[in-house]
Structures are given as C-alpha cells and as structure tokens.
C-alpha cells in the first residue's frame, strides 16, 4: 500500500511540475496574470507530493517491506534502523528520488522566500525549475521507479553495501545533492532573466543568496565525502581524482567562479552576459555529473552501451538543457549592453582573472575525466588519467588563485592603486616566507621547496585576508571598526578557510609517515615518536556483521596517547570483508591504525600512519562553508526584498 501511495504521489508531483512549468511560463510571455499566479501554489504542491513520495520510500525501508524490489536489493532486516533510513538513498533509484525531492524543496523555498520579486519574474524562475522537475520525474517514472514490486517477496533483503553503512556516507549525499541541485536555482534565475529580456543587475542581486547557500551545501557535501573516503576506504588518502569525485568538484569550481562573478555584476553592472553563462555551466556540470555517475559509463563504456536506457535518457535531457539554454543565450546575450569600464588594475580585473583560472581549472578536470572515455569510445586505446595527471596540470592552474584571493578585496573597484597595495602588503611577503621556513625546519626537521612554497602561500593568504580587519581595528581605535556587513565576514572566513585547507594539504602530503609491520601479540612498533603496542585480537559480534578487533595502546614516551581498536569486519549477507581503521584524531596529527591479514601464529600485518595536520583539510572546508552561509545571511539581501516590497506596493 505504502509503495503504491508513493508511486501515486510521484505521478501527482509530475503533474504539478508540468503545471508549474507550462502555465507560469506561458502566462509570463502572454501577459496573463491568472496563469502567472499558478507558479507558487504549483511549486509548493509539487514539493509536498515529492516529500510524500520520499517519505513512503523511507517508510518501506523502516518496515522492511521486501516486496519492494529496491528495498529487497538494498536492505536487510538485521540492518540497524539508522542505516535502513540512509539506505533510501544508497543506490540508484533512491538517490534519483532524493535528487528530485531536493529540487522540489528548492522550488518550494523559492516560492516562499521571494515575496519581494515581481510575480512575473518569480513565475519564470519557477517555470524553469518546473521544466527541470518534469525531466527528472519522467526519468524516475520511466526508467528508475523505486516503488516497483517484487512478488513473491523474498524472506530477507540483500543488504546495503557495507561501504555505505557509515555515518559519513549516510549524511554525505543529502548535503551534496543540496548543493548540486541547488545550482538549478541560479540557473533558473539566469534563464528567467534571459527570457524576460532585461538582463539588468537586479537578477544578480536576487540570485546571489541562493547561489551562496547552494555553494555552501556543495562545499559541505564534498568535505564530508573526502572525510568519509579518508577513514573508510582510502588508506589515509583524502582525494583520489576519481571521476565520481570530479563530478562533484566541477560544479563546485564553476559555482565558485559564479559567486565571484555575480558580485561584479551586482556591484558594478559588469560581466552580465558572462555571469549568465557561468550559471548555465554550473548547472549543466551538475547534470553531467549525474550522467557520469548514473549511466554506468564510468564502469566501462561498454557497460553503458549494453544497457543504455538510463544513460541515454539523461544524455538527451542534458542535451536539451544545455542546448536550449545556450540557444537562448545566443539569441539574447548580444543585446545585453555592458558599458562598465575598469582599469587593468582593479577589483574587476582581478575577479575576471579569478574566473578565468577557475573555469580553466574546471575544464582541465573535465578533460581529464572524459578523455579516457572518449579515447576508448573512438577505439584509440585505453588510458588511465589519475592523480599524477591532475597534480601536474590542475595544481599550477590553481596556484595563482591562492596568491590572489587575499589581495583581491584590498584593491578598489574600477581603478586600484598598485603602490598603495604594495605599501599595505610588502611586509607580509617576507613574513610569510620566513614563517614557512621556520616551521618546516624547526617543526618537521626537513626543509623542502614544495613545502615551503605551500606554507608561504597559506600564510600569505591568511594574513592578507585578515589584513583589512586589522587595519580597521587599528585606525578606528577598537572594535567599532570591525562593524562590517556579514557578507564581508563571510568572504574573509571563506578565504581564510582556503588558507587553512592549504596548510592541511601541504603538511599532510609532505610529512605523513607510514609503516607496514608484522606484529605478534605483545610486540610493539614505533613510528614518528609513538610506540604502538599490539595487545591482541578478539572476536566481536556486530548487529549485521562479525568482526575481529585488534587492540593497540599508543604511547608517547611513558604517557598513553590513545587506545585504538581497528576492526576487520565480515558482512555475511554480501560476503564482504571490510577494514575499519581506528583513528586518534587531533588538530596536530592523526594516528591511524589498520589491521591487515592474519599471518601464521598469532601475528598480524598492521599498517600504521601518523598524519600531521590532515584535519585542517576538512576544517578549511567547513570554514569555507560557514563563510558561504554567513554571506548569504547578509542583511543586504533581506533589506532588498523589503525595499522591493515597498516599491511594488501601490501607494
């Protein structure tokens, strides 16, 4: 019953999405207020029906209803409740439903929080969002229905992939999708602006907070994914340049370019057409990511060719979205008047440079991700593009960004003063380099050019981002000078977070140490000044697995630092063996122990790591995310809405 109700709710959601698309868009073009008025109620109804459908699927998992094919394939009665709920988005059908539901929620949010905008404009925005919803809901209903029945029902389900039975991966997809799908909102604003023909700066101001929120969620989603990969599958790695990761990273790079470009468009009226193009690209890359991950093309080009139904559907959808919006852009963009002028040394120029570097960096990730697929499809050979490629290409392309992010905000709009900037920052250059040298030599004993360069960059970025606050504090004699809008603090925090991230990357890349040893019970090994005493292995029984758990006492001299219990789990339903590493985390370093194989006698092979500053990577991500949310909460955007209300209310 519940599954059928969910199916029905999906069909209703599709109908609502169709209403939301057709009437508002037609009404806005033909000037029919009644049709325009359909937009908000239809969007809210659509999100309500999607929530019902999604709730039905969750309920089917909670109830262990194995007569639902999707539940039977991805759950098990022994699976703990939390993971049964998370299993809802653990595989294809459910994650696409999550995608659609979040899209519905974004549309609902736009219908609620855009009271100040003109009805016609909101109708266009919601209409475009409705069109996207129609596409995705058709995809679900025709190719990926999660409510399909399996009769007769099996006695028990096939269980969730043990990799996914984990807190990090339970919360990672919803956050990531909030960001991914959130890119549909600036996209719809941009398309609505193109449709209305008036590419003024208003749309940029309206879409800024939405873009910032979506970007912040995307940042959080990627950070969570990286953290999960670190402790669950990576042997201490935190980024693998896997196509699935790249699929989420490309929209992030594009969205980062977009939030900077939107600032220029809103404040200076420049880059109007370019900003629209970025909004289109950001969402197109989100859809491309969905195509890559969902079509099976990454497993092999041939797997895709053998079962092309889903992939082909998304590919056509992708073609329609990109083709349609670029066609509209080509028709409308040439009419945009962009007379804003700026000097070569100005904040506009620096932000343009930021955009160019981010877009090219994104293009290089796209190239590296698609190249092996294209080569293989053309029969030109099989190659692998992995971390060494991205290290040599992506790193030099993005390095200037770290140098420029701090000084961009110090340069005035329209025409900056190079000598004034030089006077402000000149003492920070030797300071950053000396600090980096001192740190690498004193703290880590060894000095390497790459480490010194990375750390100098990080110090430079951190100090230049905080410099304006420091100057205000000094000149205004106290805290009064620190009264700045939230948007300013958001930006500063995000740039500072980037510096923190860079410290984490540099230090953990160059100073992590590892060791693989054979240990018998009672033996110990040393690494990085820590002694790891192996106290043996015992059998334990989990809710849906059995495990052998090692006990390690880690000590630093005669002080006990941590007791670590790495596990080797066996999941009987999927007949999978999983290694659960044990980690003693801290900001200074992580101690990471993983059990290997049982060797002869009561010996085990064991892998030990000491990874300094690796937490800073995710701390930096969290700071960037917080910066995004802070900036989105700036009073300016809310004031704007109120002002608009006053203007549009007849006196």
């Amino acid at each position, binding site marked *: 019953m519940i599954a059928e109700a969910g199916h029905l709710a999906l069909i209703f959601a599709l109908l609502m999405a169709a209403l939301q698309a057709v009437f508002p868009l037609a009404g806005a073009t033909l000037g029919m207020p009644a049709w325009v008025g359909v937009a908000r109620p239809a969007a809210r109804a659509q999100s309500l029906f999607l929530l019902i459908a999604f709730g039905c699927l969750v309920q089917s998992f909670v109830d262990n209803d194995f007569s639902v094919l999707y539940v039977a394939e991805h759950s098990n009665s022994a699976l703990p409740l939390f993971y049964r709920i998370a299993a809802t988005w653990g595989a294809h059908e459910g994650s696409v439903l999550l995608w659609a539901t979040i899209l519905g929620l974004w549309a609902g949010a736009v219908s609620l929080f855009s009271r100040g905008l003109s009805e016609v404009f909101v109708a266009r925005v919601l209409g475009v969002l409705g069109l996207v919803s129609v596409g995705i809901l058709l995809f679900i209903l025709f190719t990926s229905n999660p409510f399909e029945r399996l009769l007769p029902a099996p006695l028990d389900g096939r269980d969730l992939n043990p990799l996914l039975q984990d807190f990090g991966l339970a919360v990672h997809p919803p956050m990531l999708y909030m960001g991914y799908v959130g890119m549909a909102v600036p996209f719809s604003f941009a398309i609505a602006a193109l449709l209305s023909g008036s590419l003024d700066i208003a749309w940029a101001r309206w879409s800024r907070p939405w873009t910032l929120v979506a970007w912040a969620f995307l940042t959080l989603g990627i950070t969570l994914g990286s953290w999960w990969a670190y402790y669950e599958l990576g042997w201490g790695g935190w980024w693998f340049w896997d196509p699935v990761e790249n699929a989420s990273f490309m929209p992030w790079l594009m969205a980062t370019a977009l939030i900077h470009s939107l600032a220029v468009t809103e404040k200076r009226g420049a880059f109007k057409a370019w900003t629209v193009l970025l909004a289109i690209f950001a969402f197109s890359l989100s859809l491309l990511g969905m195509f890559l991950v969902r079509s099976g093309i990454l497993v092999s080009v041939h797997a895709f060719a053998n079962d092309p139904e889903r992939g082909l559907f998304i590919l056509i959808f992708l073609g329609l979205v990109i083709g349609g919006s670029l066609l509209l852009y080509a028709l409308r963009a040439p009419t945009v008047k962009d007379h804003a002028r*700026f000097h070569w040394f100005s904040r506009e120029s620096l932000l343009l440079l930021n955009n160019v570097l981010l877009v090219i960096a994104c293009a290089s990730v796209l190239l590296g991700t698609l190249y092996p697929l294209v080569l293989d499809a053309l029969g030109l050979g099989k190659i692998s593009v*992995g971390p060494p*490629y991205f290290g040599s290409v992506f790193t030099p392309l993005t390095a200037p960004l770290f140098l420029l992010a701090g000084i961009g905000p110090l340069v005035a709009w329209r025409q900056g003063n190079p000598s004034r900037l030089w006077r402000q920052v000149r003492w920070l250059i030797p300071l950053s380099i000396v600090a980096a040298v001192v740190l690498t030599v004193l703290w880590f004993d060894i000095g390497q050019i790459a480490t010194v360069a990375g750390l100098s960059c990080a110090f430079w970025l951190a100090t230049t981002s905080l410099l304006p606050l420091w100057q205000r504090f000094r000149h205004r004699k106290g805290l009064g000078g620190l009264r700045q809008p939230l948007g300013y603090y958001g930006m500063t925090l995000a740039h500072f977070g980037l510096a923190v991230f860079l410290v984490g990357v540099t230090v953990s890349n160059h100073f992590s140490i590892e060791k693989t040893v*054979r240990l018998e019970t009672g033996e110990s090994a040393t690494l990085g000044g820590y002694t790891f005493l192996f106290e043996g292995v015992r059998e334990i029984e989990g809710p849906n697995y059995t495990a052998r758990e090692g006990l390690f006492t880690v000590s630093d001299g005669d002080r006990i630092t941590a007791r670590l219990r790495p596990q080797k789990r066996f999941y009987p339903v999927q007949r999978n063996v*999983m290694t659960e590493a044990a980690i003693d985390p801290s900001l200074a370093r992580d101690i990471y122990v*993983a059990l290997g194989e049982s060797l002869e006698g009561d010996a085990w092979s064991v892998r030990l790591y000491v990874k300094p500053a690796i937490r800073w990577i995710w701390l930096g991500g969290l700071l960037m995310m917080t910066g995004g949310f802070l900036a989105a909460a700036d009073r300016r955007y809310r004031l704007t809405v109120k002002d608009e209300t006053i203007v549009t209310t007849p006196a």
Partner: protein
Amino acid sequence: MKGRYFVLLLFFVLSVPFVHAGIEVREFPDARLEQRYHRLIGELRCLVCQNQSLADSNADLAEDLRDEVYAMLMAGKPDREIVAFLVARYGDFVLYRPPVKKTTLLLWLGPFAALLVAGWVLWRIGKARTPEPAAPLNEEEQQKVRKLLQQQNREEPGS
C-alpha cells in the same frame, strides 16, 4: 561474446571487496627504495578494479603486481624499466600518468593552450574596457565653457 566478457568483468569488479588494501610486510634496505616503491605502486593502476592504484587495492592481481614491482626494485632495476615492463604487458591503461603521445597531446596541452588563449582574450578585454582619460579641451570647447559660465552668472542674480 564481448558482452559476456564485460558482464563477467563487471561481476568481478563488483565482487572484489575493494575496501581494503593488501597489507604486506616488506623489508627495504634503505628509505629511498621504500619511497620509490610507494610512489610506483601509487601511480600504477590495478587493472581489475574500478579505479584504484596498486597501492590501494586488495585484488589478487594487484597483490601479484606489487610483488613483481618489489622484486624488480630489489633487483636494482630503475623505475623507467619497471614501468616499461608493465606497459609492455598491460598497455598504457596501467599508468595513472598517461604518456605523452599523439593521442594524448590534447589532454596534456589543452589546459595550458586554453590559458594562453584566455590570457590573450583578457588582454583584449583589458584594452577595450580601460576608461579613456579625459582629453584636454580644445580652444573651441573652452570658449563654449566660458560662454556657458558667463550665461549662468548673468542669470543667477536675476533669479
């Protein structure tokens, strides 16, 4: 035939519990050799896994290849020779750093070519967008200004 092969491969890929790397205890005479070993197995691809390096994979093949890399290193072979041996056996697919050749030129040079083009475009935009400095007024214009000012001065007392 081909289809069945890939279904088999897919099954193999999915059934390999790819979560845990093989952990072998290896002895190295010096730290530099150990570093080379880790760098090599980190840049070589496990051929039966979806996307994992030899270092991160627990597949039997990855284990065998790690053994071979280790043996060749201990035999004193240089990195280049070890890589060449694996490429001869498995093709370029085994390399995570694709070799530079005709078919990969676009891959390696594309981003930097794009950067050059973008630099040129930026330069053009910069030239087009630079605000023109106000030109000094010529004699005729100065007279006009004087006239206007005089006019204003005459009107003001009256108003």
